[in-house]
Each structure stands twice: as structure tokens, then as C-alpha cells.
């Protein structure tokens, strides 16, 4: 049976949702051990075990929470040596990709990133990866062992296995030379709003809104609908709104009941993060905008005129 290591991100005992998603998939593919590092790792082992990790390899050393990437890379490199896994799975997240990148370079194996699915293949593994921004899907067979694959969030639905995991203490394995990029302070600036990934309705704005001074139209509609506001990479890069609002390949992946895209042309960088939405509504001035070709309802028109009227109509309906 194939041996699989899953790098399970956790914060103070709470596993990341991506860790549970990866484990749910991994248990179909082989014998699974999760790796949980940093303060809280032992507490996180409970849910990790219930989602498919037969063993949870833990180390609670604070070094993993204090320094970026390098201590975790050291620990994983040692575990790869000791466990000889066939596959190491990571989430395609900011933190995991930094660890995975260093690990793949250290092992000389390379990796497959941005995957949306992983399959067993003749004793090895293959991964499906969106290609050309998501219009195509490429299937890559991993040649290296271990195969290292980074999987996009929300590619799998997390579910409990009915089993439980054995908790195994492992050595931190982090050398002093890896205590370099130190997190000296953590600042929180996010507001107390509906989480983008969890919202039933997402209203996103793009460059078609003209300027940051018009973005409030998007936020007002999202509020009226009890949903969350998102944005395209173009307007995040332009500094209109914070990165936490970015939907797309390098931002959040969302699958709400209704997704309203206002003034977003539909570059694949964006659509790959929202095309799993149940219903898509697009408002765009340009009748040739690609987003209109994938929307359930496309409205060719000026978002700046439509959004305020729509917000008013929604408030009237919800108020009554």
C-alpha cells in the first residue's frame, strides 16, 4: 500500500480546513500519516485522526510558529528520510507552498503545484492541474519519489472516516541554522465580517468599477444580501482593496450559492477561484467579456448604475 504524508497546517490546535480535505482524499489512496507542527499540534491530532490519518506525527516546538518555512522543511526532510513516503501532500496555500518549495529543492525531486485532484497510477501518482488558466486540465504523472503535490483548497470535501489516529511524537529536527526568518509580531487588521470562503452569496468587483471610490457599491450589495465582498486580482494589485478579498488562483477559492461578478472581465486567474459557484451572475459593459460566456445570467450594462438599484431592490425584498 502506498505511503502518504500529509503536511497538516494547524494554528493553536485548530487544523486548517485544507488539512482535513487532504486527509479525506489521501485515505482513498494509501496509508496516511499527518504531520502537525508547532504549539497545539497534539490537540489538532484529534480531528486529523478522525479525517483519515492512521498516524499523526506531532511536535509542539514553538520554533515552527516563530520562524517561516525553514524549521518545518527540516522536520519534513527528516520524516521523508525516516518514512520513505511515496507521496507528500501539501495545500496550495501561502505557508505550505513555501515549505514544499524548499523541501522539493532540498530533496531534488521537484513538485506538482496547483493541483485540483490526485490519482493513483500504476504504483505512482498523477495529478490534475488547471492549465491555461483553467480552460484546460492537464494530467501530470509524477516521476519523482516521493511525489510532492500541492492541492488547491476546496478540491475535496472533508469528511470523517469513523477512525482514529495514533499520536506519535517526532523529533523537531530543526537546525539552529534554520532559525532565520523570525516572525517578530503579528498584526490583525481584518474586520468582523462574513468570511469570504463561507459566504452563501459573494459579490465581487473588478476594474470595470472604474476606481476604488466606487467599490462601496459592491460592499453595500454584499451586506444587503448577508454575503461577503470579493475582488479580482487586478483591483487588489491596484491597491483598491486588501489581498484578503482576492478571489482567484492566487486568492480565495469560493463556492457560494450565488456569485455576482461586477465589472470583472473573467480572466482565468479569477474564474478558477469561483467557477464552482452554484449560480453565477455577471454584470459587464463589454458584451464580449469572457465572464458572460460562463455566467448563468449575464447582464450587459454599467455596474455603477445597476449595483445601487439592485441593492435598493434587495433591501426592499428582504425588509418586507
Amino acid at each position, binding site marked *: 500500500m502506498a505511503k502518504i504524508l500529509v503536511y497538516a497546517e494547524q494554528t493553536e490546535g485548530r487544523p486548517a480546513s485544507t488539512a482535513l480535505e487532504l486527509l479525506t482524499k489521501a485515505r482513498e489512496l494509501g496509508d496516511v500519516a499527518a504531520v502537525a507542527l508547532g504549539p497545539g499540534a497534539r490537540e489538532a491530532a484529534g480531528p486529523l485522526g478522525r479525517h483519515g490519518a492512521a498516524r499523526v506525527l506531532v511536535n509542539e516546538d514553538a520554533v515552527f510558529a516563530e520562524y*517561516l*518555512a525553514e524549521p518545518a522543511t527540516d522536520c519534513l526532510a527528516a520524516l521523508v528520510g525516516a518514512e520513505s513516503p511515496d507521496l507528500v501532500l501539501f495545500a*496550495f496555500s*501561502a505557508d505550505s*507552498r*513555501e515549505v*514544499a*518549495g*524548499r523541501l*522539493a*529543492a532540498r530533496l531534488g525531486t*521537484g*513538485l*506538482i*503545484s496547483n493541483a485540483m485532484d490526485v490519482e493513483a497510477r500504476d504504483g505512482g501518482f498523477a*495529478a490534475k492541474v*488547471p492549465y491555461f488558466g483553467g480552460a*484546460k*486540465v*492537464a*494530467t*501530470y*504523472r*509524477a*516521476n*519523482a519519489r516521493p511525489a510532492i503535490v500541492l492541492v488547491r483548497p476546496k478540491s475535496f470535501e472533508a469528511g470523517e472516516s469513523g477512525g482514529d489516529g495514533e499520536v506519535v511524537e517526532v523529533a523537531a529536527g530543526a537546525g539552529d541554522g534554520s532559525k*532565520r*526568518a*523570525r*516572525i*517578530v*509580531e*503579528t*498584526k*490583525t*487588521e*481584518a474586520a468582523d465580517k462574513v468570511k469570504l470562503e463561507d459566504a452563501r452569496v459573494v459579490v465581487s468587483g473588478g476594474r470595470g468599477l472604474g476606481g476604488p471610490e466606487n467599490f462601496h457599491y459592491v460592499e453595500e450589495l454584499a451586506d444587503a*444580501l448577508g454575503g461577503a465582498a470579493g475582488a479580482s486580482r487586478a483591483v*487588489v*494589485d491596484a491597491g483598491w482593496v486588501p489581498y*484578503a478579498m482576492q478571489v482567484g488562483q*492566487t486568492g480565495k477559492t469560493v463556492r457560494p*450559492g*450565488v456569485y455576482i461578478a461586477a465589472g470583472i472581465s473573467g480572466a482565468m486567474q479569477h474564474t478558477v477561484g469561483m467557477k464552482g459557484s452554484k*449560480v*453565477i451572475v455577471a*454584470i459587464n459593459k463589454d*458584451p464580449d467579456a469572457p465572464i*458572460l*460566456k*460562463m*455566467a448563468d*445570467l449575464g*447582464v*450587459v*450594462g454599467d455596474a455603477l*448604475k*445597476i449595483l445601487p438599484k*439592485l441593492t435598493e*431592490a434587495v433591501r426592499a425584498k428582504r425588509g418586507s
Partner: protein
Amino acid sequence: MKIVVTVKQVPDPNAPQGLDPDNTIARDREVVLDPGDECGIEIGLQLKEAHGGEVVLVSMGPEKARDAIRKGLSMGADRGILITDGQLAGADALLTARALAAAIGPESADLVICATESYDGSTGMVPPMLAELLGVPQLTFAKHVEVADGTVTVHRQTEAGYQVVQAATPGLITVTAGIAEPRYASLKGIMAARSKEVRVVTAADLGVERGEAAETVEGIADAESRAAGEVVEDDGTIGVEKIIGVLQAAKVI
């Protein structure tokens, strides 16, 4: 202070995209210096202005990628290194990182600056690999950067806000697009760039060999696409009416 900025030439993000029939990205498109790299160059130039030193641009790509380096030189960078070799065409992230590391290593830079991710690939795998191969720490997702007394400090963007991350130099930072507004090249800068050095190196010069790729393409298929639904032209009322209908059908209101 010696600063290396990695730069990449990418298909113009503002031009329409196309695929050739064999599923490779159409090469006849307009190519530009990656907009994310312009921000990296800008930060490199600001640090040089504050601390003195040199800004070196390193790129890997076809001969045409010289244009991307040239653009950075006209913004004010001092010289460039272009890694170009048919053997490296279509390189994966690890091979790219190896070639870049082989070219950058001998520069003994205090700081290597990369964009968080490229505009075309957007997977951001090269910077951590490059940091590992150079044996330096990585300070990533920087929306603010400072260097003082041999220490680099960044504000690393996170979901909930940011982290203040510090390391002694040498180090590698990745910068977000919001970190700085890239300057325009002045006419003087464009003229000066013509006489700046761009050294061309091959895989053999760098001692980099192409090994087995990490992956083999088994196939490329069309993604499950969503069929287009109804498209209406707004006349001042129908847009709102139709959207309200959709929201009601979805039981959102």
C-alpha cells in the same frame, strides 16, 4: 548593498490569450516584463537609493527576454544577466530555480528580490526553491520592506493582516504587487540602458544539466466548462429585474 532582482517576460496580461492547436501557449503574442517584477525592480531601486550599491537583473528565457531586462535597465537597474539556452526551454520550477541559483550565487547579493508569483504561471514555487538552493532565508509576501544594519524586515501579508518578519542578510524576499508603484523609464534612462551590460549565459556556462522532469504530461483535456446562460442587455430596469429573479430562485431573498 548588492541587490539581485529576478525578472520574467510574460505574455501581456492585457492582450487576448490563445492556445496553439498542440495546447502550447501561443508564442506570437505580445510579451512584456512581468508587472509584478516591475514592483520588485522598483523596491530594488529604492533600496539602492537609500543605501547605495548595485541592482542586477537576472532573467531566464528566450533571446527575446533581453527586452524585459532592457526595460528594467531603463528604469534604473545597473546591469543584467540573461540565461538563455534551448536546453532550458519549458523548464519546470526546480530547473528554473537551479539555473537562477547558479547565475545568482556568484553575485553574493545581500538581497534577492522576486515577485510573489509570476503573472502567467501564478504558482509562486520558484522563490522558495531559489532561497533553498542559495542557502538563504525567505521573507515572503512583503507589502513593506526595510533594510538596516544587515537586517531585512518585511511586513508579510496574511489573511488577517500582516506579520513583521526579520532576518539577517543575505536573504530573499518576495514582494506583492501593492508594495510600490513602479516608476516610468525616463528618456534619459532609456538612452542610458542601451550601453548597460547584459551578459548572456548558457546552461553549460552555469553547469546546470537538465535531469528528469518532476512530471510527465499524460494529457490535456478541456476543463468542464460552464455553459453560457441567458445574456440580457440592460435598459435601466431589466438587469435588476433579472438578477432579483435569480436571487429569488436561489432562495437568497
